[in-house]
């Protein structure tokens, strides 16, 4: 009885903390000068417009191309104005802001984050919209060096597959390159998969939609910074999209308890320090392959993975996550070699073995293909985070929190994907780049997945 009371108290406390945290996140998000706002939660998509989405977008893309050329010229004038006056003139600011808003609408439409056909004027009020503060004073120095300063943010936006805002802002000459750039990232990958899902089901998977909106939002922040709409550097913190996305209950979640301090010596030699772990992980992977074959057969026969196999595979997933967190500078300390639970600052918490549907088990690998594709794209994001975080930590001795949280959310998806493939759960991974869900789940009583929760 006492134990139950304690558990209830703990759950309540966590719920309060979660609410407080969400409120704090919302407050921080509202303070940012460029904010992505998701105005409707509509996931239904008209199949015919989905099927023809790219063709329907052609007029918008042509118009965006023209607008990009004009915005590039105006941005040059803005740059001179910031250098001379330390502030962007209101009319020019509004023109570029309108362009950026329009690019966001088009990106959201093409990437299936929104359903309505957008207007051509970039007027506020679209389903996935951008709010941009009026012009404020900016440092002339950061204005002068804006392009080199924006490069890390642009690199991350590229890895995220950012839509049309970044490339378009650089002008017509780079527009084609922006297509290729955006086409290779996580947002574009999510949109590609969402296209098939929306055609099949008539709804966009929520996780994929949230991944796309996050990518578009970050891209818009980066473009706004590059185009001198604000002097505030973009934040990659996934919780800054409004309203903040939330993880649905899942048997695999990530626990981030690490601080942000990174001793320089450990940062500088990070990859080399990881060499023994990478060798050990490779050896463990061989054993893991054999174990998952045994688990697959057992799950087909028994309807669940035996506890010992489950523990072994869970330790493997945890260890792989610890190593990835260490390599990507997301974790501070040198991880252990056993994948022990709660032994590392970025940890994957995996629920005990539960019953699984035999049919899902039989075709698990085929079902996992889309998740693995997304995991690969998010792996690219994590790699970019690692490179940027490495430099940042080397200079400042700290990992930027936004980068850390984005990287951790990529690892969370990677962990969920691995757990799905390795038969630790039959719950599909959730693609939205968020860390926190509702209060700590009681694994035995997980609610069934809601429609749209998949991905």
């Amino acid at each position, binding site marked *: 009885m006492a134990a139950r009371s304690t558990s209830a108290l703990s759950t309540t406390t966590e719920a309060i903390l979660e609410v407080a945290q969400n409120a704090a996140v919302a407050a921080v998000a509202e303070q940012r000068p460029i904010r992505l706002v998701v105005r409707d939660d509509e996931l239904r998509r008209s199949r015919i417009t989905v099927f023809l989405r790219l063709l329907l977008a052609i007029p918008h893309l042509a118009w965006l191309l023209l607008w990009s050329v004009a915005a590039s010229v105006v941005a040059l004038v803005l740059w001179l104005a910031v250098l001379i006056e330390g502030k962007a003139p209101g009319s020019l600011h509004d023109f570029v802001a309108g362009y950026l808003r329009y690019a966001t609408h088009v990106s959201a439409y093409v990437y299936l984050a929104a359903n309505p056909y957008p207007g051509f004027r970039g007027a506020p009020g679209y389903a996935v919209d951008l709010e941009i503060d009026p012009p404020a004073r900016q440092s002339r120095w950061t204005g002068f060096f804006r392009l080199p300063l924006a490069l890390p943010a642009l690199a991350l936006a590229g890895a995220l597959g950012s839509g049309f805002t970044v490339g378009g802002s650089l002008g017509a000459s780079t527009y084609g390159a922006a297509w290729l750039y955006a086409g290779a990232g996580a947002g574009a990958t999510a949109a590609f998969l969402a296209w098939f899902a929306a055609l099949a089901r008539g709804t966009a998977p929520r996780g994929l939609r949230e991944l796309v909106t996050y990518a578009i939002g970050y891209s818009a922040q980066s473009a706004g910074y590059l185009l001198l709409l604000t002097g505030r550097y973009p934040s990659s913190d996934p919780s800054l999209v409004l309203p903040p996305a939330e993880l649905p209950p899942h048997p695999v979640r990530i626990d981030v308890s690490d601080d942000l301090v990174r001793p320089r*010596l450990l940062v500088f*030699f990070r*990859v*080399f320090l990881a060499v*023994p772990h990478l060798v050990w992980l490779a050896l463990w992977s061989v054993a893991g392959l054999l174990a998952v074959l045994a688990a697959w057969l057992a799950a087909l026969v028994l309807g669940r993975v035996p506890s010992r196999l489950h523990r072994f595979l869970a330790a493997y997933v945890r260890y792989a996550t610890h190593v990835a967190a260490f390599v990507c500078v997301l974790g501070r*300390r040198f991880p*252990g*070699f056993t994948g022990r639970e709660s032994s590392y600052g970025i940890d994957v918490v995996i629920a005990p073995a539960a019953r699984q549907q035999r049919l899902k088990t039989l075709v698990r690998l085929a079902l996992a293909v889309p998740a693995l594709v997304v995991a690969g794209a998010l792996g690219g994001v994590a790699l970019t985070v690692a490179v940027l975080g490495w430099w940042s930590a080397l200079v400042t001795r700290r990992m930027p929190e936004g980068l850390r949280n984005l990287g951790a959310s990529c690892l969370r998806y990677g962990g969920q994907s691995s757990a799905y493939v390795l038969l630790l759960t039959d719950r599909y991974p959730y693609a939205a780049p968020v860390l926190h869900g509702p209060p700590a789940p009681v694994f035995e009583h997980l609610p069934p997945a809601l429609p749209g929760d998949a991905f």
Partner: protein
Amino acid sequence: MRSAVDVDQVFGTGFVADARHYERFFYVDWVLAQVALIATLWLYSRRGASFARESAAGPIGTGMLLGMLGLGIVWLVQLPFRVALHWWARRHDTSDTGYLDWLFGDWALLAVEFLLVCIALVIVMGLAQWLGERWWMPGAAVFVAIAALFLLVAPYLDFTTHPLRDESLRAAASRYERELGVGEIPLRVEEVSETTDLANAVAQGIGPSRRIVFWDTILKPPFSAGEQRVVLAHELAHHSQRHLPKGIAWFALFALPGAWIIMRATRSRGGMGTPQAVPVALLVVALLQVATAPAANWVSRRMEAEADWKALEVTRDPGSVEALMVDLSETSFADPDPPEWAQVLFGTHPTLGERLAMARAFAARPPDPG
């Protein structure tokens, strides 16, 4: 300074002076690098243990972290000295490798070194946790076994060489193998001429993995066919005289007391079973390396001299040996008669002057009555 030949006359006064000037830079750089190394490791042995708090691994994992960090710090501290050496080598055309290529090649090597340090620490710390202070006896034995295994296996892991195609050299090899009483030994070539003008050949492997690898630079002019045969005979002699297994035996002689010294030195930090002892162990290993270098070099010089003599016996061509020494000195810009102390500290081979003197002594000996 010790050879019986007048090196100025054979190699040319100007060349000898230039070579001495070239090598003097190496000596100064080496001394400074060693001072920096020991000072750094001394500091690390006092402060390095504090990095243990950056580890979430157990004692052995933490020991691995401290070992790798020590290696990384040493690499950083040594980097300026190594850059200076590379600059000097490029300036004198003994290396064509660009700085970036050199640095990135070095990164790969560093990763391998990190892994080797980890393996060594896993063995030592595992044994120390199991056996306490008695770890040093089996520890030394394990390292000797690993060295022997490495010697056996390393040739099979080489994918950068190709078989020697020179028919005349292969025919000479068959003759020399019969005379030296060794079986057929594969002859291979490594292409290095794009990165260096240095010439070299090495005997590798033991038992079934024995082989000889020529750098392609030694198979081209200015080295004549006679000189190439001398090199071939020299390397075959290493195999016929079992120098590589003997090298392992010598290593065992050094390893046993070395391990005991490490055990004693780390006792105050809780012994090698605790990660805090690892920085001290690194310092002791570095000191042991410096201290035992003269003895190890002496052993190596004896073996090289023996191989030289055997090569003279089977080729019966002291003229080619003399020409080889002159050509080697020119391509490597080596001082044919370095100072005694430098030979003690760095000389793994007899000096070119001594080798020349040996060839002349061979030529001057009375004819074999047989």
